[in-house]
């Protein structure tokens, strides 16, 4: 294998892209929809409502509990301004049984200069619920930028400044910037770990988070970021504005044996729960090994098979070590959706530590991915439905769909984090392995 950084490349800025990530409006909607007992009003043409619906599904919202509204802007509002229509729609919703209404502006109204902040300030006295404007036009960036925009608005509008710190407590940040299609289980796993270590979760930003939790977020002692793609700005804000220190920063999230051990150890050290962390590692590793002994994961047959990882950084970076160490494959390509400095630094450290020199593509799009797959010729691809189709004709034997919820292939949320997460990922490999072996022809016909 050719080693060296020359193989790590960032695409030149392209004018024509086929991107993986949605726009800022989508990310902001995803974040706002994580507040329980709230509603979301998209100040947008009707098409943007589809992005909200998609974000709704990604947050696993229940339509019995969370309501979405849209002002459905047309030419008239673009020409003459849509503030009046926004006012009318907010007032239409004034009897909804909610604690907060998030008002999100899309591209059109922001370009024509609708002032959603002023509209919200004007109407607030007439309403029983909180109005939170979020200026998150799609052109402001990717969905991850949108998450940061929405978190910023929430932290500045909703978090109380006063309040005592709660000992041994954390504020969890942005788990939904995570392409695990059942990311909620990752969040639950983290909460379970924290409970075992005696650490209290003050607020979760955001998933089924009551407004009261958000208001008290500043009373957390520490913040724990569960994404490598978004939420760092929120962690920085909590630190600067409320003196909340970030824990487990700069290490990959707990996917695979080593990452999990490292992450649990760091958490245990910060909260003086080293013994608990140690016993979780020992018991978790024992359970994972014993289960594998009984079930025989087929992943073991892929020894040093060239592999590719095409994912967001949240899942993609921890997978590098998991694929290399635990499954003994060789990552020849790592293509990440994002390219920010923190992502590069973290991946570079991991690659150096593992002495790997794969082709790395930051900020990849579908075209770049296809080109990179054609160049590197992996046999196994860890990615999504897109790579299943994008790798056709390139000699890829297995596409293990582990990221991106294009189709709902699991009813039960299953984590990738921790020790059960290892088994869940093995199961994904197992199913793909089985499907690839299935005979596509019958040699003769049955007689019955």
């Amino acid at each position: 294998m050719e080693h060296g950084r020359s193989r790590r490349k960032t695409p030149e800025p392209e004018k024509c892209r086929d991107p993986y990530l949605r726009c800022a409006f989508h990310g902001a909607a995803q974040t706002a929809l994580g507040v329980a007992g709230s509603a979301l009003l998209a100040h947008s043409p009707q098409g943007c409502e589809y992005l909200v619906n998609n974000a709704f599904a990604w947050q696993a919202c229940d339509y019995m509990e969370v309501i979405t509204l849209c002002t459905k802007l047309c030419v008239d509002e673009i020409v003459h301004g849509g503030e009046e229509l926004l006012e009318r729609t907010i007032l239409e919703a004034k009897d909804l049984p909610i604690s907060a209404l998030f008002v999100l502006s899309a591209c059109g109204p922001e370009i024509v200069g609708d002032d959603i902040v002023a509209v919200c300030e004007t109407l607030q006295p007439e309403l029983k619920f909180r109005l939170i404007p979020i200026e998150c036009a799609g052109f402001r960036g990717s969905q991850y930028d949108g998450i940061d925009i929405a978190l910023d608005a929430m932290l500045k509008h909703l978090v109380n400044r006063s309040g005592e710190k709660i000992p041994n407590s954390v504020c969890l940040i942005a788990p939904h910037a995570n392409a695990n299609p059942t990311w909620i289980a990752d969040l639950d796993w983290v909460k379970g770990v924290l409970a075992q270590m005696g650490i209290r979760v003050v607020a979760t930003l955001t998933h089924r988070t009551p407004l009261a939790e958000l208001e008290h977020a500043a009373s957390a002692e520490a913040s724990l970021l569960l994404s490598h793609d978004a939420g760092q700005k929120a962690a920085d804000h909590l630190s600067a504005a409320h003196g909340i220190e970030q824990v487990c920063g700069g290490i990959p999230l707990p996917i695979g044996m080593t990452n999990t051990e490292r992450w649990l150890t760091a958490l245990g050290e910060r909260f003086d729960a080293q013994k608990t962390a140690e016993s979780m590692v020992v018991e978790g590793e024992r359970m994972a090994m014993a289960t594998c002994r009984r079930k025989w994961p087929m992943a073991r047959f892929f020894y040093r098979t060239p592999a590719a990882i095409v994912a967001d950084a949240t899942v993609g970076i921890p997978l590098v070590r998991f694929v290399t160490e635990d499954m003994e494959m060789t990552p020849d390509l790592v293509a990440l959706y994002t390219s920010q400095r923190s992502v590069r630094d973290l991946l570079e450290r991991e690659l150096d530590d593992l002495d790997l020199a794969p082709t790395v593509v930051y900020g990849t799009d579908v075209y770049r991915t296809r080109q990179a797959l054609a160049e590197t010729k992996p046999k196994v691809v860890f990615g999504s439905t897109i790579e299943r189709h994008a790798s056709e004709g390139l000699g890829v034997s297995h596409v293990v769909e582990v990221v991106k919820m294009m189709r709902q292939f699991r009813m039960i949320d299953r984590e990738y984090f921790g020790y059960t997460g290892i088994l869940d990922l093995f199961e994904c490999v197992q199913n793909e392995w089985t499907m690839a072996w299935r005979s596509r022809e019958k040699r003769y016909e049955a007689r019955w």
Partner: protein
Amino acid sequence: MQSDSIVFRGNLRQLLGNVESGEMIPKLQASHAPMCKFFTAYYVINGIRHVVPLVHGPTGCPLYMSDFVRTRECCEIRGVPLEPTACTSLDESNVIYGGEGKLLEAVKEAYAKYRPDLIVILSCCCSGIIGDDVENIAREAERTVGCRVLALRSEGFGGDFRSGYEDAFRLIMDLMEPPKTTMKGTVNILGARWGPTPTEFDWDLDEVERLLSEVGIRINAVIAGGCTVEQIKHAREVELNASWCYDWGQKLGDRMQERFGIPYSRTGQPYGLEATREWLLGIAGPLGLEKRALEVIERETRAVEADLAYLKGALEGKTAVIEISEFPGPIRALSLARMAEEFGARPVVVNVHPYTIKERMPSIQYILETGVNPEVILTRGLFHLGSFRSSKETEEELEAIVQGYDDVVFFGNSGRFPPCPVVNLTLMNPGFQPQYGFRGIRNIAALVRQALENKDLPRSRLFRGMLYGTRTK
């Protein structure tokens, strides 16, 4: 049922009159959002093979289409290869300084990367408001790449659901070249798009293609249901245009008739025997193939005689309460009303929103012209805040409506729980597709049979609770 739950009770013609006069405001409440102009324009353009739809906008708009239409519907379900959903990823700086330069470069890049037969620039809200001249860029770009480059103004705010596909079909006409010959016995099928909305599946298209083939009629292109640019170029060489979904195809058929003089067979959706017969003869007649078509109809009718007899026996004298919801959509529901009447039932259509009437006005008018004018009931729940899926109120109203009739059968989908037989006409169950044509008659007969024979079996408390919450009555 409580009379204050009924907002409108009359027939389809009266409802249309109320919408036209403004008595019923054709605006959906804040939470009901149909597709915008951009989406429906994209749907049509995506139905051409080896096309690059180049979205001049931020990444949100194209990605919905990329995920839902291209990767899931086309690649996963229909065996279509993955092709690009390209965009210029407009950012804040482009919004301030304009994105025309970036667009021109993007077209060149798109051609170099994908070698398509056609590039269609689709503008969306951003590029529309900042005034980027997409048509001019398309003309300029076309001089430097090896394929046609067209531009479509498809800003989401710029029109309704209907305007997107109508404009897209109009644009497609620019690709049609003057005829060099006439393809005898050949037609275009108009009004398709691929990937389709979930209200449209290709089993129905397969059935109409099969029937045409039986009569000896060839299809040049299904526009735009997976057709090639080459087929579109030759579209003017056919003898006749026909639609497979009157709602989507009508405008293109009319325009091709006006501009190119190609006759267009105006028929509704082939649901039931009469509509199927009408559909087939509407095409075969002008081609001089009426006799062969009648032979096919006779043969096919014989094959489904038992099903026709069953449907007549099962539905005669009954009330068919038909609900327009996600699956089937409104035009299909009105086609079902016609079919129910054909088999002796009295159709009552429930909750077709005035917005739907407005956006589909030409099709509704056509349906009325064909003599279909069912009773329509609109309930209060239809106008309240809340999504289609959280329609607990309309469920309760539907249950009350059904109780007001004797001997009633519900035609809709199994997401409803009225106290009567439920004919599950969802298009999401491939076991009973197609619904068009003679094979459709067989499937619909099977669906009616299972509804009537199993009407006393318990319904799922689980699904009901999932849809409408626990402890509903």
